[in-house]
């Protein structure tokens, strides 16, 4: 599924500029140490964590897009780091579970 389709069908708000690409899977985590060992191969990371180290971890395992649940928004320096890494950032007012259900209903596994 393309990023554009996920954005449109789940009502995401973009926090930086992004390029459309395929998303193969989803990983949900708020822990950097967990992302390093578990998120490889998953293009979409759903999280509450807005710390800069999240972007450093997401970049290492090639995450294409990060969705911050519960309307969380990272600081400007975090957005700048994501820009540099080419990671698209989005926010949703949904809670983590509610947004995960939306992705499941879209066919994401």
């Amino acid at each position, binding site marked *: 599924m393309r990023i554009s389709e996920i954005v449109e069908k789940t009502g995401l708000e973009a926090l930086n500029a992004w390029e459309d690409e395929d998303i193969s899977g989803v990983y949900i985590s708020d822990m*950097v*140490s967990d992302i390093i060992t578990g998120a490889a191969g998953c293009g979409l990371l759903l999280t509450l964590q807005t710390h*800069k*180290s999240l972007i450093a*971890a997401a970049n*290492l395992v090639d995450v294409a897009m990060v969705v911050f649940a519960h309307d969380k928004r990272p600081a400007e320096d975090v957005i700048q780091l994501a820009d*540099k890494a080419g990671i698209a950032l989005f926010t949703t007012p949904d809670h983590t579970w509610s947004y995960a259900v939306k992705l499941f209903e879209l066919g994401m596994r």
Partner: protein
Amino acid sequence: MTTCAHRWSMTDIRSGYLVVEGCYHCGARSSFFSTEPVAPIDEYREGPHFWEYLASYQAVNFNLVCDKCGEKVDLRDMMGLMLSLCEDPRCEVGRLGLELGKKTSIYVALCADSSHDSGRCVSDEGVAALTEYFNQQLRSGRRKIVVVPCRMCDRIDRCKGIVLADSGLTDFY
């Protein structure tokens, strides 16, 4: 020398704490990985050093194994990884970053002894395997990951970068 084109996977994944200590006598910094349920905070003397607890972060430790030939690379000497943001031309890591450009991310593999007084650091074998492993995870050839040992940093204690540990995690709870 092996002829296998390794396909690395993580193995022996251990969750625990990255514990950072400082010597209040000489100012040296040291770190270790603990799998204790609670991060140890004891002060103790070791040779000329008087180690005092400074901080701990939830972290993960792992080794790499080749799925094809079974070769295993022990990474217990690596305490963590740091995304380098260094652009200092006086630092070897900074120079490498400037040379490789924006499409390459440099991660510094951090060993236990930031002073490197012991002469030890993360092994070359470990660094090479980490570089191969993380590049094998990339979906396209547009980007590249390079892992370097922390002994390459001019001054690791002052190096500009982001350590991949769960610092600040409790801020939102």
